[in-house]
């Protein structure tokens, strides 16, 4: 108790320095806490499933093209085969993620829900607890399971089990159960889930053969092991399973543990590592800063220690005293940081696009880590002053002109260099990541994504696509439109069955296929390299440049390609249209002429500034043709933004954290300059008496800071250059690491540093020399 009291009195005495130190530590800690929350959230992805250690995923990959292509899913026949052939496998499940929204009508309400399709065993494998009802009978096709929110949107608070809903305006389903809402950090996400057998209705299939095929890699396949040790056997023996039934297939299987899916398969672990490192650096910098500021008054403190020794304190007493002093200040900082972190959490969530909940903070693991961080910080922050101060000779400290600062130069410089370094590294990374994001945003993607509206062709809109197109073409503000089976950013249909004259029989590249009507070039503003686009008079296919490069001919018009037993005449070659992933270079693509059954989107080029009006008139036309479905439309540029969403996210995160370190840096610099000014009061006084100018005195105070900043950049620049180069290697389309990025980052950090210290230096330099010299 006594020590707490004394610490607070001390705090009151040397307010500015201690408060700066605490503020720096709080800022650092808040940053570390947020990184910790973020890392915690990332690493807890999918961990809420009780069977997490026993769930595995099987996916297919293709070899035969220029490089291996990975699929998220595998053929639907794999799932029953696994269950039958491996006694270690308790259960398996095929799952089609909620790629699209479907209309669910009930109680006179129209609801558009993210709908997944799955085997009934989904609920055996994963922890998706039911509020009402259950998963239903595995043999019943016409049923649906809703999430709590989705159910509330249709039925309100009542129990909907047994009620009917109408799916896609074509089929009646019974509500079998309602599950609790799925946590945000889950790979499996949907509003509603239907038995897989309903997929057939969607694709116009009457039998269930499509669920027994060894082709079609679109089925995400999960398995539940009876014990985690069974995984090894599956992982080693599954590779050539498809070949047992289809010997000529070039698709192979691979299994991984579901718990590794998010972090390792999707490579989120690298960001987790990067940010953990940042957290350590920031904590280190903030602690150094804290030590520096609490020892700023070490002359006085050394005297006190000397005195205490003379009245009978042992070295142990002194060390204990200093540690408890630091422990109390640290505790104050930690409590404050915790409070600030909680208050700022909604803002942080908003900035990084996550939903971290308060409950995440109060579980045992984060609290244990916080306590550990507290102990480490206290130990680090206390050790230096404790051993430094208690090491002085008593007689030295008690003379009136004692200065304890001689040996602190190296310490203070290394502190400054460290904080400068972390700031420059983070700021440079922010700039590079922003530049890359901007590059992805602005790069030539083969078409003009601006002012493109798309309409989903639901219900009768599909069969009446042509008249819809004509109708919309007549309305004001629309310059052209095209019917397609894909959106330019996501094309899912592909296969390795394409052949051409002179092709090596073992070479089987994966080729994406899609179809449009003849107005695609005009609407998307895509560019033809060779020949023409197809039209009613000019039947044939168009290939993209990537495919043309793979085939390697000089010209293509008039030549033929064959696929799955059919021959197609090439009428033109278009420039690559980027799709699916910006990290990879554009893959081969074939565009064919669309038929009525496969029409899924109408993409419309708007030419007016009154987007609202245009959309209103489009909606009106759609409603007139198909009143049963609510009009669902979107913007292509927004869809495109999803392709680089993770980079945008990373930019936000690194930006936030570099902001934090720069605050720590400023607080640290402020403390250091105050301390230097105080320590040099006498020197400044003497120099002024001898006629030195104020500007020169200011330079005297600022120069060492600038030197540390420049020294820090000598380490920071190569380190960042290396790290960012490696990061950029992940992208096929990448920006350059220009020299100006580094210069700019260093200048910004040094500029902020200078601004921070200028006031203090000026104050020190303009002080009356008489006052300074009287100081003893």
């Amino acid at each position: 108790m006594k020590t707490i009291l004394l610490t607070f009195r001390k705090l009151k005495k040397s307010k500015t320095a201690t408060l700066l130190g605490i503020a720096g530590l709080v800022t650092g800690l808040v940053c570390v806490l947020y990184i910790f929350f973020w890392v915690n959230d990332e690493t807890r992805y999918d961990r809420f499933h009780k069977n997490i250690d026993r769930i595995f995923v099987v996916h297919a990959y293709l070899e035969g093209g220029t490089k291996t292509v990975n699929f998220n899913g595998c053929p639907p026949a794999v799932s029953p085969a696994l269950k039958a052939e491996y006694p270690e496998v308790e259960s398996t499940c095929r799952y089609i993620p909620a790629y699209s929204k479907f209309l669910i009508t009930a109680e006179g309400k129209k609801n558009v829900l993210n709908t997944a399709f799955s085997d009934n065993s989904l609920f055996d494998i994963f922890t998706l607890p039911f509020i009402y009802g259950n998963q239903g009978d595995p043999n019943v096709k016409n049923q649906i399971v809703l999430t709590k929110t989705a159910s509330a949107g249709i039925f309100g608070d009542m129990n909907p089990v047994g009620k009917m809903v109408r799916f896609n305006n074509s089929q009646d389903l019974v509500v079998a159960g309602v599950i609790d809402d799925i946590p945000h950090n889950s790979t499996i996400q949907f509003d509603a889930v239907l038995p897989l057998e309903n997929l057939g209705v969607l694709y116009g299939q009457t039998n269930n053969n499509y669920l027994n095929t060894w082709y079609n890699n679109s089925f995400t396949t999960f398995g539940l092991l009876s014990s985690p040790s069974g995984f090894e056997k599956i992982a080693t023996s599954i590779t050539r399973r498809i070949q047992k039934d289809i010997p000529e297939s070039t698709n192979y299987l691979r299994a991984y543990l579901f718990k590794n899916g998010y972090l390792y398969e999707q490579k989120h672990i690298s960001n987790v590592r990067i940010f953990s490192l940042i957290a350590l650096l920031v904590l280190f910098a903030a602690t150094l800063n804290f030590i520096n500021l609490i020892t700023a008054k070490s002359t006085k403190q050394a005297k006190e220690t000397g005195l205490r020794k003379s009245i009978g304190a042992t070295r142990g007493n002194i060390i204990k005293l200093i540690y408890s002093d630091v422990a109390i200040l640290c505790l104050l900082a930690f409590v404050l940081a915790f409070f600030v972190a909680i208050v700022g959490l909604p803002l942080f969530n908003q900035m990084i696009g996550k939903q971290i909940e308060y409950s995440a903070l109060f579980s045992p693991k984060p609290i244990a880590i916080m306590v550990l961080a507290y102990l480490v910080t206290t130990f680090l922050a206390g050790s230096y002053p404790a051993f430094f101060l208690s090491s002085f000779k008593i007689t030295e400290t008690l003379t009136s002109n004692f200065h304890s600062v001689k040996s602190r130069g190296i310490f203070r410089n290394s502190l400054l260099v460290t904080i400068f370094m972390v700031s420059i590294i983070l700021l440079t990374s922010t700039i590079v990541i922003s530049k890359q994001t901007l590059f992805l945003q602005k790069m030539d993607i083969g078409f003009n994504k601006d002012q493109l509206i798309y309409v989903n062709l639901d219900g009768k809109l599909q069969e009446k696509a042509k008249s819809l197109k004509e109708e919309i073409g007549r309305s004001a503000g629309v310059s052209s439109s095209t019917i397609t089976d894909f959106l330019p950013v996501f094309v899912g249909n592909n296969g390795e069955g394409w052949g051409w004259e002179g092709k090596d029989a073992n070479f089987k590249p994966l080729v994406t296929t899609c179809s449009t009507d003849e107005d695609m070039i005009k609407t998307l503003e895509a560019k033809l390299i060779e020949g023409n686009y197809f039209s009613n008079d000019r039947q044939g296919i168009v290939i993209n440049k990537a495919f043309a490069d793979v085939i390697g001919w000089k010209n293509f018009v008039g030549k033929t390609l064959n696929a799955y037993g059919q021959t197609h005449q090439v009428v033109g070659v278009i420039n690559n249209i980027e799709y699916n992933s910006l990290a990879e270079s554009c893959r081969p693509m074939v565009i064919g002429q669309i038929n009525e059954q496969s029409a899924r989107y109408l993409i419309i080029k708007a030419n007016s500034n009154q987007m609202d009006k245009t959309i209103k008139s489009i909606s009106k036309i759609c409603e007139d043709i198909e009143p049963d479905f609510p009009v669902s439309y979107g913007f292509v540029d927004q869809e495109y933004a999803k392709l680089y969403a993770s980079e945008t996210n990373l930019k936000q995160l690194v930006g936030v954290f570099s902001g934090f370190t720069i605050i720590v840096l400023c607080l640290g610099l402020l403390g250091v300059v105050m301390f230097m000014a105080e320590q040099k009061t006498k020197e400044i006084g003497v120099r002024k008496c001898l006629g030195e100018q104020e500007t020169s005195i200011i330079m005297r105070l600022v120069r060492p800071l600038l030197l540390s900043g420049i020294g820090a950049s000598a380490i920071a620049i190569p380190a960042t250059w290396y790290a960012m180069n490696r990061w950029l290697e992940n992208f096929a389309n990448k920006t350059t690491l220009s020299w100006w990025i580094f210069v700019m980052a260093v200048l910004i950090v040094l500029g902020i540093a200078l601004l921070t210290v200028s006031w203090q230096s000026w104050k020190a330099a303009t002080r009356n020399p008489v006052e300074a010299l009287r100081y003893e």
Partner: protein
Amino acid sequence: MIHLNNIDKYYDSKFQRTFVLKAVNLEVKEGEFVSIMGPSGSGKSTLLNIIGLLDAPSAGEYSLYDKSVLDLKEKAKVDYHRNFMGFIFQAYHLIEEMTVYENIETPLIYKGVKSRDRQAMVADLLDRFNMVAKKDLFPQQLSGGQQQLVGIARAIIGKPKLLLADEPTGNLQSVQGEMIMETLQQLNNEGMTIIQVTHNEKFAEYGKRIIRLEDGIIRKDVASKIVFSI
């Protein structure tokens, strides 16, 4: 009680050895009040620090009660500081964050005295120095003389046999200085051995014996006039 034999204190620099104290012989008996005088840099404070075990001599012998106290272990030294001697400083060296009461109490805490006993002892001393009303004030709220009184109280609370004072009046005006000296004299009359370092001829006279140091050598060691006049 104190026996210094041939004490040297010197610092070696590259080419020469600088002596602060040279062949100092000194014997102090229990109950004495010794004033050490001399110009700046004559080695007065160093001598006092050596006696107070805050500094070690470069050569010579030093014994307290016929027991050598050179090469003592840290723990033994701390024991002497806790139980045998008290210090008073020119700059008072009170702990700024502590009240008068807490400053005086601190040595007792290190000594391991129980809380109730501490209260009684501090209260006694406050009473004796007429500072009861000031016990909750902080040092900077007191005058220099009062601060030094607190310094003395802190030095004697542990009932030391030896009180070492390094220019106890150096920062004080003469009236306050006299008050301090009278206090010291009174303590001496009660049997405490006191050694003080001072610049002030008048205050030196409060001692029963005056030692004059010059360039680290004892030039004079005489009984003071006041003793004669008694």
